[in-house]
């Protein structure tokens, strides 16, 4: 599915394979605890370059926590994450994060365009004025998710799906190599889901790596190359064919999925 290794420009013009030889995201022995109960325990994850990986698991399995720990938003109790072989702190510019929609106040006084421009904050710095080329770039990113017509809207006037697309546009503006998304399809309409998956597959085609927390088991095989099953501990990791199996799902979800349901999901993939 990711046969042709696509071209991704690097600063020094080095060949792509060299840059991507090291995993875009490697997590080792990561434990995060709120209080004295680990939310995730000793997690190892290795994202495949240029592929789309779904992090799946039941509610409360620590999917979002894993993502936030990898991004340095929550502090792990132990373990570390490396991005393209180097510590996260030095690699922030190569990562773009799409948080859960519910994590912000949508009544905040800001417009769709302003949010997209936040994706350029690294470039704009403290004082550089927003120029026409910045606006053009932000508009292009909004256009990719079908939100260019809404640029002047206050974000509170958008539907849930539109809000999610604006968040994706902000991440696109960062022009990153690794995209980490937290439940990008949660509570969005069908049109938005299609728009988002098209963009994510475009990112993959450009050689970028996508890792997404995903909740809808029925679309895993259709959308993703790899899965990472988690329920506080790592259950399985690998391609959809090898890791998205009935046994692994049963292990991750415990008794919460009916056998017939699992068969349907897994058989549907072959």
């Amino acid at each position, binding site marked *: 599915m990711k046969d042709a290794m696509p071209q991704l420009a690097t600063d020094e013009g080095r060949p792509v394979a060299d840059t991507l030889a090291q995993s875009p995201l490697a997590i080792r022995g990561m434990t995060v605890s709120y209080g004295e109960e680990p939310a995730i325990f000793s997690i190892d994850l290795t994202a495949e370059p240029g592929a789309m990986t779904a992090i799946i698991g039941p509610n409360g399995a620590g999917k979002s926590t894993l993502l936030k720990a990898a*991004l340095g938003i929550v502090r792990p109790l132990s373990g570390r994450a490396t991005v393209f072989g180097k510590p996260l702190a030095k690699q922030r510019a190569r990562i773009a994060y799409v948080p859960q929609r519910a994590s912000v106040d949508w009544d905040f006084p800001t417009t769709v365009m302003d949010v997209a421009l*936040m994706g350029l904050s690294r470039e704009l710095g403290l004082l550089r004025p927003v120029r026409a080329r910045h606006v053009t770039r932000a508009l292009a990113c909004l256009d990719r998710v079908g939100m260019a017509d809404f640029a002047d809207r206050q974000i509170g006037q958008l539907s849930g799906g539109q809000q999610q697309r604006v968040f994706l546009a902000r991440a696109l503006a960062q022009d990153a190599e690794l995209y980490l998304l937290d439940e990008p399809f949660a509570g969005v309409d069908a049109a938005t889901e299609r728009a988002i998956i098209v963009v994510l597959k475009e990112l993959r085609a450009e050689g970028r790596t996508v890792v997404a927390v995903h909740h809808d088991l029925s679309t895993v095989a259709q959308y993703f190359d790899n899965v990472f099953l988690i329920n506080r501990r790592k259950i399985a990791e690998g391609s959809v064919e090898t890791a998205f199996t009935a046994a692994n799902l049963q292990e991750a979800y415990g008794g919460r999925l009916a056998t017939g349901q699992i068969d349907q999901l897994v058989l549907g993939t072959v």
Partner: protein
Amino acid sequence: MLRDALLLQMGYNATLVALGAASLGVAAGATGTFLFLRKRSLVSDAISHATLPGIGLAFLVMVALGGDGRWLPGLLAGSALSALAGLLCVTWLTRHTRLAEDAAIGAVLSVFFGAGIVILTVIQTLSSGRQAGLETFLLGSTAGMLFSDALTLAIGGTLVLALALLLRRPMIQVAFDPGYAETAGTSVSRTDFLTMALVMAITVVGLKIVGLIMIVALLIIPAVTARFWTNRAEYVVALAGLFGGLAGYLGAAISATAPALPTGPIIVLIGFALFVVSLLVAPGRGVLAAALRYRRFQRRVHLRQGLISLAQGQPVYERLTRRLLRREGFLRADNVITDAGRARAAKILRDETRWQAVRRSDSLAPLAMQDNGMTDIASVLTADQLAEIDRRIGGPKGVTP
């Protein structure tokens, strides 16, 4: 007299006070906006109350060193230090205990304020303290304001304002989406600390004129007032500065018209007046505009429901609906449908039938999800799709669209 005051014709001191209060208002309004956007308005209350013990201790230290004790820069430095201690307490309690920030603020605010009052009482009993006048820091005082005081306000205010504008992007980014900001290279903890430092600075600068109890009003009221008028954070900052400056200027001018009028409280009341006016009349977010929109929408809903009932030959029970139908000329005074009512009802019924056809259609059914009962079908379907639907339901039956 008020006119003289507003035109700075009330004498040297009144002019100084008005200009000082205006520059303080601009700086406090703009800076406080970032706190408001971060949803941490109350932290400023903890910071301002935490200045009091520092003022008292600074006085005691300066007296012990053989100085005057009332030297303003020394007092302000002391207040800044104890405000910082209060802020660190709030931060530590929130981060390392299970206390929520509001509880931490309540605890820190009252303990620091209590300690400050005790120290001030002790100072009152000392011979050197009789004339200290430290209690003016509670409610502020502009009596006998010196040129150097006004200059301190202007310079301090301008400096804080400049820093706030310099840091506006990271502060807005963190206020909107801290998790994202962290990943995009903006340190949340550092940005939050800088925001607090600016608030602390403006609090210290404003202590003398509005007092520590009311400085929070100058930080927060202009921001919430400005929020009524705009949906963009940077404009909220600018407008809050404007409202704050206006409140400072008008408040100082008005209080200069009578000897007994306290400046700080008058400034706060002017700020509050601006808030109330904005709350009522602001378009969009204002209370009146919202009520009007609600009424207008309610009337549209009632009319539509009433016409659907009429079209289906059902009686209309709700009195409001009947009144609206009569007012629009769709019902006669004896509640019999008019020709105009019949025509409009037929049109609405046709659209209902169209929606039903859309819901049952294989290809167009997803579009029907956009129907909420009040949705204009022509705004969802293209002209071609509409024609296709009309063909299916047998065309518009004698209804002019």
